[in-house]
């Protein structure tokens, strides 16, 4: 275990503890908005944990605690016509795209009024009117699919970019390779955020790959690549913004490695006993929300009262959201048999 720890450590370029975040042109107002999404992400997950403990969540529960800056920062750089395919740990992305917490809650609780009406679970839903494509569980599969979204956008004369995510573990799938190479050779505007949080379930990256940073994979496909501090929401935002620009200008795909850490287990049931305690302690110091808070205060972009007000407002909103979600019934059994085939156009 301590060997694993050691071998993992150096593979994972240290993320600065410092509060000095990446340079940005984002206004104070927009930075406060970013803060709101970060908090909404975390606070919704806290509510979900409660619901889980109350046995209201039907299946497993997955948390993005400690990684919120990756989802929020990257999604915030997209435009309204862009399309994103988030994974299970990208709650923040859903929120930035306009999804309401009750939608996620109803998904987890398998309720009739959730976006899939109880047919599928957690973040497994999409909605192209909000630029969202649903994942499937098989990791990697979304990468070629989102390459196809990007290709379609270009063929349709839209200037959209497509974005999706993959974990350090998910980079070992065949679809990661085929999808990225395909996107590269077609030069389509695909952004792949590689969320390197050090672990795939219990597996440290030292057992996942022999390389020290995933950004070298970009050169294997001849595409742009950047590695950023994934716990700095501004760094993630800025890297994605540049990638969006590149994509819109015909510069092809970008791979962004966001270095971060998974602060809970793989899922709610997993106590992550295999992760050395010191790592949690180390990364707690680098908490993306705490850091961003300190940044906002230090830069005079928000007062403590502003932040408290944002938090209080989210808290209130979440009360309503939880109530609404709980009020939704389970779907009627007949619905199980409906909707296998499309009979009318979805788009």
């Amino acid at each position, binding site marked *: 275990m301590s060997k694993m720890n050691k071998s993992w450590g150096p593979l994972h370029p240290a993320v600065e503890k410092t509060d000095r975040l990446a340079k940005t042109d984002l206004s104070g107002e927009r930075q406060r908005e970013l803060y709101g999404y970060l908090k909404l992400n975390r606070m919704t997950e806290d509510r979900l944990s409660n619901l889980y403990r109350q046995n209201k969540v039907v299946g497993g529960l997955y948390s993005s605690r400690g990684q919120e800056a990756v989802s929020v920062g990257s999604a915030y750089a997209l435009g309204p016509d862009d*399309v994103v395919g988030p994974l299970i740990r990208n709650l923040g992305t859903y929120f930035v795209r306009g999804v309401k917490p009750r939608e996620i809650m109803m998904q987890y609780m398998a309720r009739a009024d959730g*976006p*899939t009406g109880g*047919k*599928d679970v957690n973040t*497994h*839903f*999409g*909605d*192209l009117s909000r630029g969202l*494509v*649903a994942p*499937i*569980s*098989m990791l990697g*599969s979304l*990468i*070629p*699919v*989102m*390459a*196809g*979204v*990007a*290709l*379609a*956008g270009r*063929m*349709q004369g839209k200037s959209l970019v*497509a974005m999706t995510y993959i974990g350090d573990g998910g980079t070992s799938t*065949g*679809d990661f390779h*085929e*999808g990225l*190479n*395909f996107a590269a*050779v*077609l030069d389509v505007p695909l952004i792949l955020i590689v969320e390197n949080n050090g672990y795939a379930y219990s597996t440290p990256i030292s057992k996942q790959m022999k390389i020290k940073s995933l950004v070298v994979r970009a050169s294997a496909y001849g595409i742009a690549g950047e590695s950023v501090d994934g716990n700095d929401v501004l760094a993630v935002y800025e890297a994605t913004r540049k990638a969006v620009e590149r994509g819109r200008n015909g510069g092809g795909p970008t791979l962004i490695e966001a270095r971060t850490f998974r602060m809970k287990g793989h899922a709610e049931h997993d106590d992550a006993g295999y992760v050395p305690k010191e790592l949690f302690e180390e990364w707690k110091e680098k908490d993306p929300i705490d850091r961003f808070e300190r940044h906002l205060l230090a830069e005079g972009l928000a007062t403590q009262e502003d932040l408290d007000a944002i938090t209080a407002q989210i808290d209130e909103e979440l009360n309503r959201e939880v109530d609404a979600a709980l009020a939704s019934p389970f779907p009627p059994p007949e619905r199980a048999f409906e*909707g*296998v*085939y*499309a*009979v*009318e*156009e*979805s*788009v």
Partner: protein
Amino acid sequence: MAPITYIEAIRQALWEEMESDERVFMIGQDIGTYGGAFRATAGMLDRFGPKRIIDSPISESAMVGTAIGAAMMGLRPVVEMQFIDFIACAWNQLFNFAGPNHYRWGQSVPLVVRGPSGGGVRGSNFHSQNPESVFQHGPGLKIVVPGTAADARGLLKSAIRDLNPVLFFEHKFLYRRPQLKQEMPEGDGLVPIGKANLARVGRDLSVVTYGAMLHVALEAAGRLEADGIDLEVLDLRTIKPLDEEAVLATVRKTGRAIVLTEEQITGSVAGDVSARIAEKAFAWLDSPVVRLCCPDTPIPYSPTLEDAYLPNVDKLVAKVRELASY
């Protein structure tokens, strides 16, 4: 218009759909400059340009994945597998992504994956497969298996216009058979997906079949006339959704059924059809429902071996005689 072959009919369908609907485009290995390993896309690069005729890397999973993404965005991708056997490398994308998508979150995935399937051309195990047997289980997929030139054209057009993921399995043994040359109907000549065709009306025994085996059945029917046995031949044309009504109707009429298919027998389409008959037309049956398929072996290369492996007219005639006297 002059009669054309099965493969020409496919090319025509592709060409016409490309002309009439700019959402249609193609992805495949060597489909551009080369015009496709079987020339199904010959001339298309010149006519439609590289944006709509995309020469692909050897990445079947990404080809299908890309098509899924483009389909969700409202386009109509048609993916060519150079040989349909390579669809195995896209299994997950088709079975888990494309098929279940509409059920899961209401988003349609209108795409076609097409390519040459089937044996009899000494292609050995990786250039002769009939993947309908394994894909039939996949919720949300449609599977089409044309046996004639006009059906190939009409069904391919329907497949491209369908809102769902359609697997279009052409039989390469039929591609250039001169006997299959047919005049194409005026206009689109659309053939609906999900509708079987009564290829021969008969009295005594129903042969339910499709693809290359359709012609085996028809030839056998001719030969059996001399015996005074009058075969009815049902060409399924679509495997999924299956035209169960047509299957049951022919069996209820003749009381005897052979399901004749070119696939290893276990887990076959033939087994599935046969099970439906045994469940839903039991009262009409005068004899066992017989599956005439291939043995449960890989597809062998040598002519002597492949001939032993494949169903043929002799084998069918023998089975019919056996069953007729049951």
